[in-house]
């Protein structure tokens, strides 16, 4: 009898001991903590999206009841949202087709531009590599709509859209046809150029890390340059190429600002723009959630393809031997020509936008450069404008300053949270590598990447309608931003932690350093620049973000929202001026961080 009494007790104390000793290891605490946190933060929103997609709201119920003579009540479960949306060619199928085409073209453009550039920088003796490399990143650092705005500034003409006169028409009188100004062509081109630096960073990183011997081995076997490129270099770079395509594809699918600026005015609608308009109408909100689910499924599908592709038998990890002895292709006489061409291209995509914004913000009559004025910057009186109360000139406009401060505040908080979580997740995952929990945490941390920004905003809007205390607060924006930008931070955190062998930390454990001390004094300093990049990237992304927050705030909370407001109201001097402000701030932050700490944006996304 005593046996029966003792055993459960002992078992309990054994179990307690096991739990206690499990949680005495910091990595275990962290991994469990993040597993729980991420589960809550992904499962709950997903639940509310699915629920909203399968139920009807008050307005929807009224609409369906009148249209279809039904008797639905608020909160009833139904498939109507799916039926209506998927049965509508103009709100769903055409935009879907447009989204797919736009994303495919953008990926091709990004790969061609970024891949060529990566090849030039890593494999040839082209002049001024450092300079080119630094400037080529600009289009990525700048908000994606920057180039869209420039496009509008240059090509808009009296024949198309709102009839605002652009630079080209005002200088030469040429009016380019409508499809050049608005539609799929500018959308794909702008997205392609925006993501080309990404392709450069990923492909260039692989090329740089690739063992030079692999190419030399082919050289020795008398293969020509072309054959080596086709048979050796490109296949080895293939995974990087592939993940670039997936990344650009899914980011373009999700992009909102660019299609709004250079798509919608030409009646070119994509899923994200449709999502926004479905959402704005209370009687079609359910359909907006259906579309969110569609966008998420696309993300999952793309990631699945990526996993399948990289999980194949051929391992692309290469043992690095005596590399660094890459013999550059000598461009010879073509060097000057190619370098000159690069200067022109880089000027157009990286420098010219900034000049263009400055000029546009100075034109009293839009597009007319003979009417330069500082009014839109310096006026202490109301600017007026077409339909809005624009307030004072930019520098004295309290609305703009409030919004700018709001954006900076949000970005700072988000980057601090995301950067720190990224490092901690990286630490926990690296220490617990191979365990199921570690796999789950790194998977969950990557999940937000699959959800398009716009849909992400919609999800949390759904959450905030239930948790009303969150509605419209900074906290909601911080939560949304933190989760959305976690994937890259956790990935870069994991990468840099994986590079540190466990022994480095163990050496500190042996001498009795506490866990915070080990993190702050040993691990952090070693990977300082890549950790700081983990803070930099969310800051910059958040600063220029529009689509993520567009549904969640009113016009005057964030600077990007204000920018799109001015653009919608056609006060382009103001929107250009604000854009210039954002671009300058983002570039300055990037430059300052780079100079002070050696961290840079390309390190944040996995480049070297």
């Amino acid at each position, binding site marked *: 009898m005593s046996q029966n009494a003792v055993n459960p007790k002992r078992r309990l104390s054994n179990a307690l001991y096991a739990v206690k000793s499990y949680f005495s290891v910091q990595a275990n605490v962290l991994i469990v903590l993040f597993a729980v946190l991420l589960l809550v933060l992904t499962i709950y929103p997903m639940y509310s999206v699915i629920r909203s997609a399968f139920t009807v709201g008050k307005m929807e119920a009224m609409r369906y009841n009148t249209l279809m003579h039904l008797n639905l009540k608020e909160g009833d479960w139904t498939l109507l949202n799916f039926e209506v949306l998927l049965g509508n060619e103009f709100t769903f199928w055409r935009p879907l087709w447009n989204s797919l085409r736009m994303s495919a073209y953008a990926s091709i453009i990004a790969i061609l531009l970024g891949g060529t550039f990566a090849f030039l920088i890593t494999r040839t003796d082209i002049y001024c590599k450092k300079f080119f490399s630094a400037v080529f990143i600009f289009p990525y650092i700048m908000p994606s709509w920057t180039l869209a705005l420039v496009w509008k500034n240059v090509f808009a003409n009296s024949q198309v859209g709102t009839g605002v006169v652009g630079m080209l028409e005002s200088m030469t009188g040429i009016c380019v046809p409508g499809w050049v100004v608005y539609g799929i062509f500018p959308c794909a081109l702008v997205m392609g150029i925006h993501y080309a630096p990404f392709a450069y960073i990923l492909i260039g990183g692989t090329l740089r890390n690739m*063992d030079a011997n692999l190419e030399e081995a082919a050289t*020795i*076997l008398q*293969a020509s340059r072309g054959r080596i490129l086709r048979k050796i270099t490109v296949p080895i770079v293939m995974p990087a190429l592939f993940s670039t395509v997936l990344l650009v594809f899914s980011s373009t699918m999700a992009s909102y600002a660019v299609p709004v600026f250079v798509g919608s005015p030409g009646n070119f609608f994509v899923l994200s723009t449709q999502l926004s308009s479905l959402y704005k109408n209370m009687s079609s909100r359910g359909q907006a959630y259906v579309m969110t689910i569609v966008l998420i499924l696309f993300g999952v599908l793309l990631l699945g393809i990526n996993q399948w592709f990289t999980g194949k038998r051929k391992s692309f990890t290469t043992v690095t031997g*005596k590399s660094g002895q890459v013999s550059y292709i000598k461009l010879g006489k073509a060097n000057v020509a190619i370098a000159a061409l690069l200067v022109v291209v880089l000027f157009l995509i990286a420098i010219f936008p900034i000049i263009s914004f400055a000029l546009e913000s100075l034109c009293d009559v839009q597009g007319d450069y003979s009417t330069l004025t500082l009014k839109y910057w310096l006026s202490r009186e109301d600017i007026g404008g077409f339909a809005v109360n624009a307030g004072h000139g930019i520098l004295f406009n309290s609305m703009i300053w409030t919004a700018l401060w709001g954006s900076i505040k949000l970005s700072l908080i988000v980057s601090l949270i995301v950067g720190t979580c990224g490092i901690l997740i990286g630490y926990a995952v690296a220490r617990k590598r191979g365990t199921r929990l570690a796999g789950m945490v790194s998977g969950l941390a990557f999940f937000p990447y699959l959800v398009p920004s716009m849909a992400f905003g919609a999800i949390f809007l759904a959450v905030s309608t239930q948790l009303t205390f969150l509605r419209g607060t900074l906290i909601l924006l911080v939560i949304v931003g933190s989760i959305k930008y976690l994937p890259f931070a956790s990935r870069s955190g994991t990468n840099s932690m994986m590079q540190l062998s466990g022994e480095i930390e163990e050496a500190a454990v042996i001498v009795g350093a506490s866990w915070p001390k080990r993190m702050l004094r040993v691990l952090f300093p070693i990977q300082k620049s890549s950790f700081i990049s983990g803070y930099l990237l969310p800051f910059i992304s958040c600063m220029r973000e529009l689509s993520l927050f567009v549904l969640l705030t009113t016009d005057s909370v964030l600077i990007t929202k204000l920018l799109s407001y001015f653009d919608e109201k056609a006060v382009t001097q103001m929107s250009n001026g604000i854009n210039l402000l954002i671009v300058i701030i983002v570039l300055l932050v990037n430059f300052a961080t780079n100079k002070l700490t050696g961290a840079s944006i390309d390190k944040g996304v996995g480049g070297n």
Partner: protein
Amino acid sequence: MPRITLTHVTKQWGSFIGVNDLNLEIADESFITLLGSSGCGKTTTLRMIAGLETPTRGEIRFDDKLMFSSEKNINVPPAKREVGFLFQNYALWPHMTVTQNIAFGLETLKWKKKEISERVAEMLQVMRIEPFADRYPAELSGGQQQRVAIARTLAPKPRVLFMDEPLSNLDAKLRGEMRTELKRLHKDTGSTFVYVTHDQLEAMTLSTRICMMNEGVLQQYAPPLEVYNRPANLFVADFVGNPSMNIVNARVVRPGRGTAELEVFGKKAVFSSDEDVELPSGDIKLGIRPEFLPISREGDLEGTAYSTLPAGMETTVKIKIGDTILSAVVFGAIDYETDAPIRFSITGSRILIFNKDTGLLTASGSVQIL
């Protein structure tokens, strides 16, 4: 098969000189090792001959054909030199199967399909890797990868085969096996092999001639046994041989021609050589291989056992005499108690005298303790 000639080859990066004024002639069908510690310029030399690196100055010829000349501005690209190159890390293409890896070079040479598959099958068989024909490199062990790399290199029947530390990534046992096979391969193919290594044992056992380098400068170029028995200078003497040669401070007290009286280990001794060489008085370095220090009760010299390292087949005994610690090798396993007195002598006719200042070999002969 060509003869390879290097004349005044120099490689410079900025002010750093990687290889300095190297003159070398590699005979047809020989097996040459470039030996030296890391950073001595041996890999650079190999890469220059293969054409993967461009020398700063000098000339490289295959037979009488100029491959490189800084003066005449000739630089034949690596592809045109018809050489094979085996990389240290194998450099197998990860996206190709074993068969594809081996066939690649033949396809480049536009061989016929049938010939290619025959040659690939032959190489698979020679290297004993037939079961792995359809595997990817990542699915092979280090030794298997190594064989694939050799097969890929040999498939187009190169006239010269360059190898850059091909065995350094293998474990000790496999390295031994591969050494045996490389030597056979050299005989079977009849190609010229140029081999880079930092392992003196590999150089000793494999090559027909060793090219010993240090800090970019050629130290000695001779057959292995000559390098072992008559090292050109103290550096070579110390580098080749395991345990290393004992280098002992000594003094010529009575100079002579061929014969001289020495002071070594605090004793008088007579050095006599068959060579007609002048032995002036003053400090010298005496080089004694461990096998020339037999331990016996009747030995002329007495020291103490500093430490004993029995390895089974032979035992290395570290003997302390005065301030010097000598290595001696004894056949069989013996264990001396630490600090026990040991008597030993100096035998053989291959005791070496080096110039103390220049480090160059002066004479080889026998030492008789008086």
